[in-house]
């Protein structure tokens, strides 16, 4: 109500005037009626009324809300005072905007990716269960298995529900053209555990997830819209997926996402409990922990159930239960968010820390400028304080000014945040999980507001401490320059020290990232010129996929057809693409005479199924022995290739591996190693090349099957035309000349996964480099400011020195030395801080230690040289003449 009065003050004042005028007139009329002449009547009326001005003032006092109004007045005063020095104000606002904007942008990512709960009800109780063979820190974690799932489901006291899932791809046929889609396989519990109901239709019943039940499918909203235009009559229709008709029973809501995966359809596993054996760790698990259950309770519950599970299910052929019982897996629950977000958290926090440092530096710089401004107003402030302005009033005024700057900087910064988040979403796209949740929302805005206010308070702190303390009428007493100057100087020098130190830390961080990136690009990935290798995924479906030999013949025909395209140098295929992320680490690989169960702990081996010429296409050398031939496939020869790392680990050298025997399961026949090939950095350049085994893409007697081939395969084509539109058209024509029913998908060159493996480091490098560049610039400005100030303050001294015979260059050196001393102090502090800070980012480094002396040395040199330059520029002014003049004028 009263606040409202503030805004309609103008009207209230007018009303009061009208009221007073009316009163006056009435009095005047009365006096006239009593017989006074007009002029005297008016004077008498005035006399009766008393001072009109006082009345108005008294009314205004009565009406105002003192705090708000003085605040408003001070704010206007602050705005005016900022407008008086537009250049300085603009520089301050720009500095703050960049720093706040950058910090808020990174916070947007941190918040969206790390802090926000996953988009499921009660998401903090969602976990996945992962397993390890041993408790060592390096032990690789692997996913869950059906025998554990059934046991956990039946016996758990701490889990409310558990389900299994796995991503796959499938072909949809029977519509106008064949299509490759992403399918999510689940047990019936998965959707209820997530707590998401289909929008149309219903979820899977436990019966539908049992073997022999009619085949069903649920569509995601996006696929339903894309393929069926949101037609609600889809429920009850049939969709042919991988050659089998499935009844559509539901459509998920538009907001449904499955752990950041792209999903088109959801299909039940229909696991057969009676067929389950021990092992088969190729299923992801998802569970909901009961309310109020601690992690320790869940852990002991899992530890209790694992031995039960080994009792309950038969071992796979060729193994004994004792082997499993002797080495039970270790299980742990992993929060689902960790599963989704992965290891990106570290990167983001380091980035957040870096941006926080930039913000601190920006504030230090601005605080310095604020101090200079306040120094300029020293006399004014002193006069006002002498005239009775309370120190509280002065403090409020100074702080309001800095707060106003903080708020304007914050608003401008938020604009930058919007732009930066847009850019971040484009550039960091393949690397950031939960990208869709990285948005500038009210929490981000609140964060920016808090940061802006804190920055406003921080930058106003020094002027307030200096000029708005209870004492200090003293500064009125004349020049007082020398002592005042020194004190002021010390505060500014301290700020510069901090700035230089911070810049050094940021530079060291980005320097380490540069070294890391350099080391990564120098890693031999195992293939050559990835931009010349075209990848395309082809899946043979339906009846044609049933006969292994027929699949291979068709794949062979496709290879031949592609090889005939002009410009193609080499063609091959494999059951998975290089660096695709997924792998067959299911079964324990057995080398002759050595197996996992002989008491020695061995990492799981990965294997792939490949066609001939794969290594020629990739550019990977065959180190010993020979490559596969088509005869190896068609004759189902018991042959295999291994990677050099594996050969070395097992048999000491590449050549020694030739002729050795391996197999993937005890029921299989032994296969002879006929060749050893170069290592592939399949997990990314920053990880060691994993030991790999390659089997022919058509094998006999594998895993208790008579024969196996791989209808869903990635074809690799080496050609200078890779990635071009015309080549894709030729490729499609070639494939369809063999089988016109084959969908082609996942076109990309090998460069794409290669780049992606470097992208996080690249992203980190870019962000840290920007932060470091800003830091260096701000630090230089700081040094420049201090030296420039010092030069201007010591004009008289310079004059005297010059008069006494000092040369200009000597004096210049004196000031540069002063700057260098500051910088050296900053470097020392910075090195200490960097040693602590970079230890924290060591997990992001590759091929370089976080204490890398070269980086530290180079960075310190850069900082000192920059400081020297920043000090030299103002020091030049020493000889620009007016020192002597200043001396003469006294």
């Amino acid at each position, binding site marked *: 109500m009263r606040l409202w009065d503030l805004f309609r003050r103008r009207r209230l004042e007018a009303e009061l005037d009208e009221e007073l005028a009316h009163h006056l007139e*009435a*009095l005047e009329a009365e006096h006239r009626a009593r017989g006074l002449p007009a002029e005297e009547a008016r004077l008498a009326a005035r006399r009766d009324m008393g001072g009109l001005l006082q009345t108005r003032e008294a009314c205004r006092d009565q009406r105002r809300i003192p705090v708000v109004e003085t605040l408003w007045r001070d704010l206007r005063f602050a705005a005016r005072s900022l407008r008086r020095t537009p250049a300085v104000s603009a520089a301050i606002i720009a500095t703050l905007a960049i720093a706040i904007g950058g910090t808020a942008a990174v916070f947007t990512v941190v918040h969206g990716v790390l802090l926000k709960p996953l988009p499921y009800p009660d998401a903090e109780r969602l976990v996945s269960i992962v397993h390890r063979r041993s408790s060592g820190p390096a032990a690789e974690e692997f996913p869950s298995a059906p025998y554990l799932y059934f046991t956990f489901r039946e016996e758990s006291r701490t889990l409310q529900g558990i389900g299994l899932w796995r991503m796959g791809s499938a072909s949809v046929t029977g519509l106008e053209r064949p299509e490759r889609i992403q399918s999510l396989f689940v047990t019936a519990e998965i959707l209820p555990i997530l707590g998401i109901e289909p929008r149309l239709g219903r979820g899977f019943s436990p019966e539908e997830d049992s073997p022999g039940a009619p085949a069903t499918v649920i569509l995601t909203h996006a696929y339903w819209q894309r393929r069926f235009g949101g037609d609600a009559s889809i429920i009850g229709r049939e969709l042919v997926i991988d050659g089998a008709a499935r009844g559509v029973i539901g459509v998920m809501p538009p907001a449904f996402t499955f752990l950041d995966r792209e999903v088109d359809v959801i299909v039940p596993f229909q696991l057969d409990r009676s067929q389950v054996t021990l092992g088969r760790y190729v299923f992801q698990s998802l569970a909901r922990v009961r309310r109020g259950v601690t992690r320790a309770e869940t852990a002991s519950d899992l530890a209790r159930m694992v031995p039960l599970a080994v009792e309950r299910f038969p071992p796979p052929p060729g193994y004994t239960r004792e082997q499993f019982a002797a080495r039970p897996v270790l299980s742990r629950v992993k929060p689902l968010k960790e599963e989704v977000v992965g290891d990106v958290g570290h990167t983001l926090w380091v980035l957040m820390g870096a941006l926080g440092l930039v913000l601190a530096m920006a504030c230090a710089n601005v605080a310095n400028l604020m101090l200079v401004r306040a120094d300029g107003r020293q006399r004014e402030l002193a006069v006002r304080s002498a005239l009775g302005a309370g120190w509280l009033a002065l403090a409020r005024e100074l702080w309001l000014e800095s707060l106003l700057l903080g708020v304007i900087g914050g608003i401008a910064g938020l604009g930058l945040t919007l732009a930066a988040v847009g850019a971040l979403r484009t550039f960091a796209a393949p690397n950031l999980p939960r990208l869709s949740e990285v948005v500038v929302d009210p929490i981000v805005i609140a964060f920016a507001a808090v940061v802006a206010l804190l920055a406003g308070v921080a930058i106003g702190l020094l002027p307030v401490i200096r000029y708005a303390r209870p004492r200090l009428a003293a500064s009125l007493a004349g020049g007082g320059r020398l002592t005042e100057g020194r004190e002021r100087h010390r505060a500014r020098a301290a700020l510069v020290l901090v700035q230089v130190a911070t810049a050094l830390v940021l530079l060291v961080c980005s320097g380490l990232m540069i070294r890391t990136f350099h080391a990564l690009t120098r890693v031999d990935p195992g293939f050559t010129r990835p931009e010349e290798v075209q990848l395309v995924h082809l899946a043979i479906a339906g009846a044609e996929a049933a006969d292994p030999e027929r699949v291979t013949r068709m794949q062979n025909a496709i290879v031949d057809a592609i090889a005939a395209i002009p410009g193609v140098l080499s063609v091959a295929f494999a059951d998975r693409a290089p660096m695709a992320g997924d792998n067959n680490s299911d079964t324990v690989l057995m080398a002759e005479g050595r197996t996992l169960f002989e008491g020695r702990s061995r990492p799981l081996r990965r294997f792939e199924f490949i066609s001939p010429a794969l290594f020629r296409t990739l550019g990977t050398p065959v180190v010993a022995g020979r490559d596969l031939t088509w005869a190896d496939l068609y004759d189902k020869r018991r042959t295999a290739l291994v990677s050099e790392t594996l050969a070395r680990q097992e048999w000491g050298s590449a050549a020694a591996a030739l002729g050795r025997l391996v197999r993937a399961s005890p029921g299989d026949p032994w296969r002879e190693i006929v060749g050893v090939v170069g290592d592939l950095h399949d997990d990314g350049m920053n990880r060691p090349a994993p030991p790999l085994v390659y089997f022919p893409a058509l094998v006999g007697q594998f895993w208790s099957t008579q024969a196996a081939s791989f209808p869903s395969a990635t074809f690799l084509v080496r050609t200078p035309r890779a990635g071009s539109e015309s080549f894709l058209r030729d490729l499609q024509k070639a494939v369809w000349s063999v089988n016109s029913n084959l969908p082609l998908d996942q076109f990309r060159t090998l460069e794409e996964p290669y780049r992606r493996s470097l992208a996080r480091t690249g992203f980190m490098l870019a962000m840290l480099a920007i932060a470091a560049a800003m830091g260096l610039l701000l630090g230089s400005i700081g040094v420049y400011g201090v030296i420039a100030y010092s030069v201007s303050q010591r004009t008289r001294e310079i004059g005297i020195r010059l008069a006494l015979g000092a040369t200009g260059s000597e004096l210049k050196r004196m000031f540069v030395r002063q700057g260098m001393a500051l910088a050296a102090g900053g470097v020392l502090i910075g090195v200490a801080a960097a040693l602590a800070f970079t230890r924290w980012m060591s997990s992001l480094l590759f091929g370089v230690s976080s204490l890398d002396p070269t980086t530290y040395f180079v960075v310190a040199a850069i900082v000192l040289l920059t400081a020297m330059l920043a000090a030299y520029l103002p020091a030049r002014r020493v000889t620009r003449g007016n020192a002597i003049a200043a001396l003469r004028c006294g």
Partner: protein
Amino acid sequence: MPTEVLQGTLDLMVLRTLETMGPQHGFGLAKRILQVSEGVLELNQGTLYPALLRLEERGWIKSRWGVSDNNRRAKYYELTARGRRQVAAEAASWERTVSLMERFLRKPAPTTGR
């Protein structure tokens, strides 16, 4: 000899006048107060207005724009229910003060005889 308005008494005068006279504009109020005081009170009529604002803010009176006898727009003040209670309370307390003061002023203070 006219006297200045005692601090705090103007409020009660205004309230009491509004109570007996009903809604009044500023001029009418001033005139009535001076009339009742029969020349004893010296009032800068302007001081009435801050007092009116104060009373309005306390919720004891309310104002609205109306038309005066000479057909001018004028602001009329009237007592609210709370104001009415306030008059009663203040009048009672004032009377107590007056009677107390009277007792001190009429008789000499009683001495304690030994």
